[in-house]
């Protein structure tokens, strides 16, 4: 910053601090910037207008935004909207007053005279919408950690899929069916097109774990219905993922990015479980004669027991 700029800024601040005061009116303005990257500006005014939106000039870095206008009780008009990406400092101007009034932003209060514009208020980083890369990083990680280490039930289900056969192809077929299915319901549920209560979904997920494990004990063949059933269970798990994702929240500015990368993260988590299981056990043990009776069956039994326990627990 050159000396000339310092001087310009200092001069500007001096001019801005000059008292130029009308009488104090009844107007009150409070601006809030939220962590969900929205702004809300409440104006308490006794004035009436058919076009409040026109009377409010809300700018970020000099760029005017178009707020939604809500008329609330107690003479309050609320302007709200999304904080733009890379938003510059916030400024406010209200053209429906001739008196002085206070603009409150958190702990800061500024007195504005009539239709004066407020001094620019820089937004803190936590209210600014994240960039697409931030969202990709964040939701990949959230999706992955929701499986490893967060989702023991999903891990057990994936292990159940894995334990069916020592061959790669049946595992890949099941994983693909499962992935397609949970992607579908994750998307549908997030967009609100499908809604099933967690009181149904969660016990069913537990039951699905028990089912695949029990079937593992009876056969090592990939039956056609098994793929169909894994697909059906995938639909259930997708709803479960959606519940979690809803709790985490999706940035409105990068909704689809977050949805897709969360799903991809979940996928990576599942593949990591399979890869680890394959590396730890199956790589050398799968050809051994004891692999199925001594490992697959007891492990499946343990998984089935856990699944049944969770089913009962989640039903209660």
């Amino acid at each position: 910053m050159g000396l000339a700029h310092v001087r310009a800024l200092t001069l500007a601040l001096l001019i801005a601090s000059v008292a130029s005061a009308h009488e104090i009116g009844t107007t009150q303005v409070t601006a809030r910037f939220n962590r969900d990257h929205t702004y809300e500006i409440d104006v308490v005014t006794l004035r009436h207008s058919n076009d409040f939106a026109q009377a409010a000039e809300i700018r970020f870095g000099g760029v005017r935004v178009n707020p939604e206008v809500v008329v609330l009780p107690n003479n309050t008009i609320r302007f709200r909207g999304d904080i733009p990406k890379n938003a510059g400092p916030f400024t406010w101007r209200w053209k429906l007053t001739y008196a002085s009034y206070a603009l409150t932003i958190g702990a800061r209060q500024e007195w504005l005279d009539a239709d004066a514009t407020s001094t620019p208020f820089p937004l803190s980083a936590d209210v600014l919408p994240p960039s697409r890369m931030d969202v990709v990083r964040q939701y990949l990680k959230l999706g992955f950690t929701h499986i490893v280490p967060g989702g023991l039930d999903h891990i057990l289900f994936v292990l159940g899929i894995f334990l069916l056969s020592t061959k790669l192809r049946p595992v890949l077929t099941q994983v693909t069916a499962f992935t397609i299915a949970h992607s579908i319901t994750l998307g549908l549920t997030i967009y609100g097109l499908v809604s099933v209560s967690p009181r149904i979904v969660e016990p069913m997920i537990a039951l699905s774990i028990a089912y695949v494990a029990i079937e593992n004990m009876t056969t090592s063949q990939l039956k056609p219905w098994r793929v169909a059933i894994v697909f059906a269970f995938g639909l259930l798990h997708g709803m479960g993922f959606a519940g979690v994702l809803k709790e985490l929240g999706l940035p409105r500015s990068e909704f689809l990015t977050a949805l897709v990368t969360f799903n991809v993260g979940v996928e990576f988590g599942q593949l990591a479980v399979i890869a680890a299981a394959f590396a730890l056990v199956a790589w050398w043990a799968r050809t051994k004669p004891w692999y199925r009776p001594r490992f697959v069956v007891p492990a499946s039994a343990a998984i089935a027991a856990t699944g049944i326990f969770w089913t009962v627990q989640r039903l209660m």
Partner: protein
Amino acid sequence: MKRIAAVVIAVAAQTAVAHAHDFWIEPSTFRPAVGQMVSASLRVGQEFEGDPIPRSAQFIDSFTVREGTKEKDVVGFENRDPAGYVRVEQPGLAVIGYRSKANPLQLDAAKFEEFLKHEGLERISAIRAQRHETAKPDRERFYRFAKSVLNAGMNGGANGGARFDQPFGYRFEIVPETNPCASTPLRVRLLFEGKPLAGALVTAMHRDDASARIRIRSDKSGRVTLNLPKNGVWMIKSVQMVPAPAGTDADWESMWASLTFER
């Protein structure tokens, strides 16, 4: 950085150009019954459209109501709108009067010149030009002198002996000489420091009809005669400006007088 500096300056400049606006008293009714409680709201605005100004001891110098020969304080709650309450005790005209303390105001040079022209204060522009100060920002102190006439239970021309034509003794004041609620034409007189003020611009405006507006200069005796074209709520206003006394932080003193009434 250059852009930010430019934005800051632009914004700051806007902050400094806030315009001075009219000030008037708007009672809840101009025609109360005797014994009725009337609220007196203070307003700042223009074109009769304004913001309510809550009562503030910081701004009020005196806030009184006159009925006949009696004058009493207008009561009210601090920081609340309406700023005051009046109970009319006898038939006739009652006059509410408000005098503010001094308030500082700053305007940039261009806005100030525009304002001087708008309020008919070209002689101040001329003084500034003579002193080569046309480009100098304005530093002024402003004062409000607002009055409002309530017509309690009277019809037509009678005024019940009310002394609406007696000045409150404000530094700048619009004094009706005929009954503002009834007389046609209406004659009012401008008094500045107790003496008639000649050549001042007087504006009369109708609350509900912006086209019914009269702009006229006071004559040598400080009088204007107004033929108000229609009934309804009216405001008569005038702005007087003089150099501020030496040794103060202002260059000018502005005085805003208004009179509201219904006819």
